[in-house]
């Protein structure tokens, strides 16, 4: 697991508390986690266990109550909003449950969005290359409403990869898809880590999709309760969940 040395994500004592007094909720409770380069990690756990909060904090979309996060050795706490925005744009890719494509832009325009924000002259070409890699070479100029759910999610993945990020964060990427499309997306995300060398952190409820990952992190009540390697079989995540009493 430490064959590739550089750690992309380093989290230490990460705590997030919402509200105060009686309404006080500890969403994350002193979590430590390290994700090396090119690893595909899936996070599972019951609703409210803190997995989405973890993802938001990692993406710099929310600020922690305590603890630290570093992406490629850069502590997020030190960054002003504009630098954080820039970091998100260049080093982190997002894949959302609801795809979140801009409805009035075509596939290639959506995929090239972060590059264009960065002022990249070759934005469209690079986005086209990524769309071809994720299997959408023939649908470049279709708008989201002319694509199936699975295809839309492929556009979202191409968008996440277009800036060559170090880390891809995926929040329930298959939650809105039929099982066939879900499997294809799971496979594609594995490809993202194994072939294209990005670290992937995915939150999911679906043990079958989780099985595409190399590593499984199980959470409950804001804490990591188990952290294990997966063997690629569909049964492995389910067995782990049962063992941890999460099923």
């Amino acid at each position, binding site marked *: 697991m430490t064959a590739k040395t550089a750690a992309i994500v380093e989290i230490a004592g990460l705590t997030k508390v919402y509200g105060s007094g009686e309404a006080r909720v500890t969403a994350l409770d002193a979590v430590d986690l390290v994700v090396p380069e090119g690893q595909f990690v899936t996070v599972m756990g019951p609703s409210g266990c803190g997995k*989405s909060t973890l*993802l*938001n904090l990692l*993406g710099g*979309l*929310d600020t922690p109550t305590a603890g630290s996060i570093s992406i490629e050795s850069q502590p997020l706490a030190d960054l002003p*909003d*504009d630098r954080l*925005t*820039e*970091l*998100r*744009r*260049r080093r982190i*890719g*997002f894949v*959302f449950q*609801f795809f*979140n494509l*801009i*409805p*009035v*832009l075509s596939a290639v*325009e959506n995929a090239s*969005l*972060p590059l*264009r*924000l*960065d002022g990249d002259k070759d934005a469209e070409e690079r986005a086209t290359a990524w769309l071809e890699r994720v299997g959408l070479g023939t649908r470049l100029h279709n708008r989201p409403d002319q694509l199936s759910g699975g295809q839309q999610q492929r556009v979202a993945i191409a*968008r*996440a990869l277009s800036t060559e990020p170090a880390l891809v964060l995926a*929040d329930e990427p298959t939650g809105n898809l039929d099982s066939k499309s879900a499997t294809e997306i799971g496979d594609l995300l594995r490809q993202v880590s194994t072939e294209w060398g990005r670290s992937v952190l995915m939150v999911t409820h679906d043990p079958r999709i989780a099985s595409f990952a190399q590593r499984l992190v199980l959470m409950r009540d804001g804490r990591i309760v188990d952290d294990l390697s997966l063997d690629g079989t569909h049964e492995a995540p389910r067995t782990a969940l049962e063992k941890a009493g999460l099923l």
Partner: protein
Amino acid sequence: MTLSLTLAWRYLRGRGARSLLTTLAVVLGVMLTFGLNGILPAMVEAFTHNLLSAAGKVDLTVTSAYNQPFKPDVVSKLLTVPQVATASPGVQRTAPLPRSADAPADALAQVIVVGIDLATAAKLHDFPVASGRMLAAGDNAAVVMNTDLAGELGLRVGDQLVLPAAGGTARFRVVGLLGNVTVPGQEQVYLTLPAAQQLFGLGNRITQVEASFTPDADRAATEKAVAAALGPDYQVGGLSSESTLLASLQVAEFAFTMFGVFALATAGFIIANSFRTVVAERRRDIGMLRAVGTRRRTIMGMFLAESLFQGVIGTALGLVAGWLMAAGLISAVGSIAESVMHLRIGGPLFTPATWISSIALGIGVTVVAAVVPARAAGRVTPLEAMRPQLGEVYERRVGRRAWLGVAMVVASLFGLTTGSPGLIGLGAVVFLIGFALVAPAVVNPIAQWASRPLELFFSREGTIARSNLQRNPGRSAITVTAVMLGLASIVAVVSMVTSIFAGFTTYLDKSLSSDYLLIPQSIVLGQGNVAAGPRLAQEVRAVPGIGPVSTLRVAQATSNGTDVQVIGIDPDTYLQVAAFDWNSGSTDAAVGQLRTGRWLIANGIYAAQHNLVVGQAVQLSTPNGPRTYHLAGIGNDYLNAKLSTVYTSQQNLQRDFNTTADLLLMANRTAGADPATTKALLDRVVAGYPAFRLYESWSWRAEQLKTFNSTMIIFDVLVVALALPSLLALVNTLAISVLARTREIGMLRAVGATRRQVRRMVMAESLLLSVIGTVFGAVTGLWLGYALVAAMSAVGWEMPYAFPWSGLVATVVVGIVFGVLAAVGPARSASRLDVVAALHQE
């Protein structure tokens, strides 16, 4: 930035219907500001063109300050000024043409008779003879005129032209026709000076001197020098009647600009509302854009660019629509102007200021209205993209602004109590802004209160509608404000029109209460009327069946440097056939007082101009020198409602102004006399006086009202144009609120609401919003209307404020009908929502 533009443009196109509604609001606003302001310059241009083309090479015109004929020695005085090259004495008066019974309604009713001094006139005007010959010295019964005018009159060389004279009629033979083109309103026929003097009974006196300057003369300095050489009895320059006309046009310009600004402000609210909803709808998109690394500034830029696109497109279309509106209105009033005022108005004219202000306002209002929503969009956090949408966010942030609004409303009340037109006008605007600020805070309580009657008609759906409306007071307030602005401007216009109309009919009824009127055909234009000697009144009195007869005589005076019209009445008979509309504190006793010496009655305009109180001394400069009069009372009559006027006894008029001719006769029938016989007998008397027309009062009144009503078309068009933006505001807000609640409506349908119930719910919400907006609009509009009437009075168009009852009812009905109309589309689409799709809607 290019990305912002791309996104803005794509979103704009992607939401076609919405963009169209919003842009249409801008179009209407720009159309009103631009179009209305294009009409006035066209009219002013028509007037000045009219005057200029008649003027020839004339640099300066001298007339009597009292509109009296004067001695020809003025010419030699004028020539003492070194820069004056030529001075030509002349007579210029209007003469009515005898009207044949079968003449078409638009037949020429009068011509301007010009007596020219043959030796000097040719140096100032061209008289290119096309056929026949020019006038020659000693031609006492000859006339020349332009060929086109002769054609209109059906005359050829050798024919005779019959003109009314003081003692009957006079005939002139057409000896020549000229090649000049006649300007409408300047239909001139030329006589030799002695012939004209004889026609009008002037002796050797003249009515004007025209002069040209040496080529190197400084125009302003020369005019000054001439004025100094001639003294205060003469008027140098243009016609004094122009200034009152221009003052009226300025008021119209002010009102037009105000309506345009109102329409644009309404558009601003529509745009702000539209963008608020757009931001709410795109929260997920914005969140995602932020998540993938878009800066706040880029997001703001995107919305501002979108508003800029709409502003530019809307303004461009608005300019086109405004041009069309101006052209349409001008052609609508053009025929009236041509027949009543003898003015030919060209196409609409747009000054650079109109272009600049319309474009700046159109684009500016749109972008400014989008600033607040755009900033809100910039504040959307990336996390919004991760969450499923929870629906609209309850907003509650109205406290401080509401109190500011209350303070403004209170402050404006003080403005109202001052009675100063400026402060009343300012107060009206402050009042309006105050109301707009208070609206968000009071919408909920008002909705609460108003929903009780609503629930009577809409039962449970009414309750749901009310809570929908209360859940988002910000949006409700914007709709209410947009409706308020739209309707306020309508109520203001209606108030103004009602007041003008009421003042008009009051004067009309009171001052012309006699049974018969004998009026020269151009009575309202004070100058150049042909008057009658005492014989006409005597002949009328002698007609069997005629009771009291009273006459009016007219002279001009100046008082403290301003012109005033002096009307001579007979105190013994005036009140038997006419009446004054008295201002408070004055009574009919004032008329009796005129018998007792130099007393006068002032009309409202004159009294306001000089801040007069009853009993005060007034200096009038008369042809016989300054005279001191005292004010007996303040009262108004119809004919002089628009002119600064004083009334005194005919005895005073004779003594101080040398005027003895009757300009207008009023007569009553005796009880029991047969109307038909009396009229026939009167007709026979009047036949000998072609300058005069006999009216039975009811027909004169009807004729006046008809003319007046035809000009009302302009106001009707205006009201429709003003009402449209408020309809748009309602449709827009409702459509938006339905779109924004798609999911909620789907849920209602899923748990068992029928299509009918959903439709009724949307309808009830619309009705509630429009009722509140209408009430607000009515209250603010009444004030604004009052301010407008006060402003008109301040510039000299006195009229009593009349409460626009029927207009108010009409406006309220329009507001409520619009509320229902606006809801039809959105209610249908809400009730037809596919439940499953609606529930899945993000």
